[in-house]
């Protein structure tokens, strides 16, 4: 039998205005096992906590019930208080009489009546609470960053700088990600490559960082502090350690018709190639779909020209297995496919391009060496129409677009428009927009400059249709402010395509058992308070995989994620959540139902010898839960028909006691 103390918080007037806190404390006194009950203005204040500690000592309390705000708010606080008072932190139950009572019920009698019932339920539960001690597990002091864009690079650098080894897994042959494809960055208009490539080199040279490029994560096992990951490093048919990146092979290869993905297929490279000049690692890679040698065994030119002897046609995929303490997802984004938007004629005309394609067209390393030329005829465009929100904020275009705002388009379009007007003042630039969103340091100033200094035509309204006609693009649009239809003969139409999470994110999330929202963005543990952590312990989020972001935001989140990782890796051991499943071996019959539903693979089976009452022994297959792996969802407890499986902290009898108390 517990000796229970009940503490009713007023929360100033938040609770006390609609709940008669004194009446709640008095009612609690009548419950069996309650030996002390009181109310106080702010239970969570230092004075309130001291009051609890004093009461524990004075009344030899063994269990505490705090009637206050949501346990999501202060459960941890009061558990610490309990520990300070010398009782097990898990002997505390919170009755949520604020969010779920005083704030949602208007009159005092109703609120008080409900608060009393909630208090009784918590009392009933705490009667059955047992002291719980978290298990401990070791932490592997190595981190894995999945994705080698600016987010992944920044996270890796920060972790490495703190002295922990970190691996970057990048699916492309080089790190750099989307930022490497950009020309200039807003709002400063500095060159993307100039600020990114030094970081790429830093990463390559940092002795704590290992870059595993051209690779993907295949399997993730384990749990926070103890992940075990299998990485498949695809064969690039070039020995990475030997290749000097001289690039000779990429000039001699006879197969020239390989679409250049880095330039969004707007030009070609050879079957052996280096994605771009500043690639890291600067190592050639053979595209097996195009290489004659690999396809039909005839050629071998690259091997002949390679003085380093780095070419290896027999190279196979390599499986790397490694243990990690923490994993950072930095899988980034992609523009959505705009082909489905028939009205913009993207598939019909080469001169309708996406903004990212526009970046490559204006980039000095791009297919046109930085000259803005129409993809169709290589002519200089004189009229350019930018269409904003293609697929963004698009509630009605289900299946094609996204409901959310892609956040970065307003700013990069302003940048594009400004750059065009700057370089080619003879060009007329129209921007069609729903709204122009420019919150951010120096963002609105930047936009105003585009309009005011560079004379970009910003027109509020949507483009209804783009029709290719006689080498021109007939743009039909509406000007909402002037309330008129516009017809523009454009040479180039640039679509600000919505961005979406990379396709690799969903399967990765499944492997990581990290949750995702319906748009496939990773869900953060808390949208405000834990924005860089996934709800799954040990999994962190960096960059646009969590939601649309520009570069400064990405970098700050990347560093934030790194800080979290460093915090985790700095611990030698981790205390687990003691509210985990537990199997009663005497009752378990080994049917495997529980293991079938466990999302973490926390349940294994052992053959155990039991001494029977008649002094014989019997070997039985029984379930055993790894408390470090179990996350405490409780799926197994319901799958188990005999009730052998129970969940600490939420035991069957505890929940039933709550039910009883509520229904009384």
């Amino acid at each position, binding site marked *: 039998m517990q000796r229970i103390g009940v503490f009713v918080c007023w929360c100033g007037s938040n609770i006390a205005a609609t709940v008669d806190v004194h009446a709640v404390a008095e009612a609690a006194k009548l419950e069996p096992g309650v030996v002390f009950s009181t109310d106080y203005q702010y239970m969570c204040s230092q004075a309130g906590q001291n009051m609890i500690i004093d009461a524990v000592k004075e009344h030899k309390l063994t269990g505490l019930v705090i009637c206050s705000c949501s346990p999501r708010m202060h459960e941890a606080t009061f558990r610490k208080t309990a520990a300070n008072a010398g009782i097990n932190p898990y002997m505390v139950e919170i009755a949520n009489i604020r969010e779920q009572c005083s704030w949602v019920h208007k009159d005092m009698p109703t609120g008080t009546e409900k608060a009393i019932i909630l208090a009784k339920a918590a009392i009933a539960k705490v009667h059955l609470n047992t002291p719980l001690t978290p298990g401990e597990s070791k932490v592997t002091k190595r981190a894995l960053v999945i994705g080698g864009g600016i987010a992944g690079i920044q996270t890796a650098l920060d972790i490495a700088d703190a002295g922990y080894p970190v691996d970057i897994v990048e699916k492309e042959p080089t790190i750099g990600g989307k930022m490497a494809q950009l020309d200039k960055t807003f709002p400063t208009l500095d060159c993307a490559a100039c600020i990114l490539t030094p970081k790429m080199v830093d990463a390559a040279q940092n002795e704590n960082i290992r870059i595993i490029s051209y690779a993907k994560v295949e399997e993730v096992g384990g749990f926070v502090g103890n992940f075990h990951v299998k990485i498949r490093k695809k064969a690039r048919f070039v020995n990475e350690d030997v290749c000097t990146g001289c690039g000779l092979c990429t000039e001699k290869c006879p197969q020239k018709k390989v679409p250049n993905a880095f330039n969004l297929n707007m030009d070609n490279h050879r079957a052996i190639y280096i994605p771009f000049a500043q690639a890291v690692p600067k190592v050639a890679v053979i595209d097996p779909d195009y290489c004659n040698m690999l396809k039909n065994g005839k050629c071998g030119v690259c091997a002949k020209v390679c003085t380093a002897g780095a070419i290896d046609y027999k190279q196979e995929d390599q499986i790397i297995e490694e243990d990690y303490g923490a994993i950072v997802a930095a899988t980034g984004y992609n523009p959505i496919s705009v082909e489905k938007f028939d009205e913009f004629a993207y598939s019909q005309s080469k001169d309708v391009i996406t903004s990212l394609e526009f970046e490559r067209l204006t980039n000095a390393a791009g297919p046109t060496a930085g000259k803005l030329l129409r993809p169709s005829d290589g002519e200089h465009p004189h009229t350019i129409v930018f269409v904003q929100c293609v697929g963004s904020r698009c509630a009605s275009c289900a299946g094609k677009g996204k409901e959310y705002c892609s956040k970065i388009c307003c700013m990069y379009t302003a940048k594009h428009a400004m750059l065009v007007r700057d370089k080619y003042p003879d060009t007329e630039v129209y921007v069609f927009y729903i709204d122009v969103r420019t919150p951010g340091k120096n963002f609105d100033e930047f936009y105003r400059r585009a309009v005011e200094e560079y004379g970009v035509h910003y027109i509020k309204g949507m483009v209804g249709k783009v029709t290719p006609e006689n080498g021109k693009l007939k743009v039909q649009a509406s000007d909402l402010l002037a309330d008129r239809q516009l017809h523009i003969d454009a040479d180039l139409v640039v679509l600000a395509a919505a961005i979406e999470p990379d396709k690799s994110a969903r399967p990765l999330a499944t492997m990581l058992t990290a949750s995702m929202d319906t748009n496939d963005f990773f869900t953060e543990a808390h949208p405000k308070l834990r924005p860089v952590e996934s709800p799954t312990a040990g999994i962190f989020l960096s960059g646009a995989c969590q939601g649309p972001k520009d570069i400064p935001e990405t970098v700050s989140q990347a560093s934030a994620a790194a800080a979290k990782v460093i915090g985790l890796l700095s611990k030698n051991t981790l205390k687990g959540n003691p509210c985990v499943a537990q199997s009663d071996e005497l009752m*378990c019959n*080994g*049917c*495997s*139902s529980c293991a079938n539903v466990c999302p973490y693979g926390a349940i294994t089976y052992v053959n155990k010898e039991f001494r029977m009452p008649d002094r014989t022994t*019997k070997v039985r*297959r029984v379930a055993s839960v790894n408390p470090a792996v179990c996350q405490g969802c409780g799926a197994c407890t319901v*799958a188990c028909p*005999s009730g052998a499986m129970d969940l600490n902290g939420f035991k069957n009898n505890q929940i039933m006691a709550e039910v009883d108390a509520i229904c009384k």
Partner: protein
Amino acid sequence: MQTVTRETLLDKASALLASGEVSRVLGWKKGEFAYDVTPAVFESAEEMEKDFVYDIFSGANFSKYLIKETAKEGKVLVFLKPCDSYSFNQLLTEHRFDREKVYAIGIPCDGMMDASTVKALAPEGLVSAERDGDNLVIHTLYDGDKILPYADNLPDRCRHCKSKKVVAYDEMLGENGDVVDSHRFDEVAELEAMSEDARFAFWQNELSRCIRCNACRDVCPACTCEKCVFDNPKSGVENKAISDSYEEKMFHIIRAFHVAGRCTDCGECSRVCPQNIPLHLLNRKFIYDIDRNYGDYMAGAEEGSRAPLVNYKTEDPEAADVLERGDK
């Protein structure tokens, strides 16, 4: 017609016993009357010769006995009718016994009688009953003989047989059959078509007769817990006798829920119920719901298959949609 006779089984068993291949035989033992056949373990050909029977009353499902029998030394011979073989597989799926210690002989079946069915046909002074071709012949003390078509008077579980196919065996005697459709969900559908009130009245009448003898649970090949929640004072739902109408519903709902997706629809629960409660209609409701909502699934059809309630698809229907369908 029973193509496999007592003699066929006897010869087979005697040979296996003699060769030492098996050390025991799970079989049916003759009783005082025609209908009170008891499951028994035979250890010699002589014992079998004396007491082994195989006739229209050899209906008991032996699969569950294998848990106990395989714990002993040596191999045990078991005869599996089609429906028994599903239970057999399901028990294997749940690691309940060691397959290596069983020699399973599949036998075809075209429906078995049971005591309560025959007694319902001849409530007063039943002497014996046997099969004669397509007929069931019942001899009585006071009312002479009754001759009835065999197939039409089978107990419900056999009239609505799910399968004539033995799905697990080491050796098949006679010809194996196929999975059959005998409208086993018709009764469930009929109930579903009734109004909520009518259904409530129906089940109230049925379940209120329950005496909580636990025969349904104890015979059920899916109920193999070390300790049933209803026997466990710590479970919070322990109850021994029905003190309130709530408890009879709770017991039967939870019993059916615990075997949902694992029940092979062998019908033993209804057969053994001394109060003739149609318990199979509860189990079948779950099977029917599972089939309609999550795709056809027959527990025990395949060893090692994953039961529907420990499985999911992301596109599963919502509870509300399932309910709509069940309440046409």
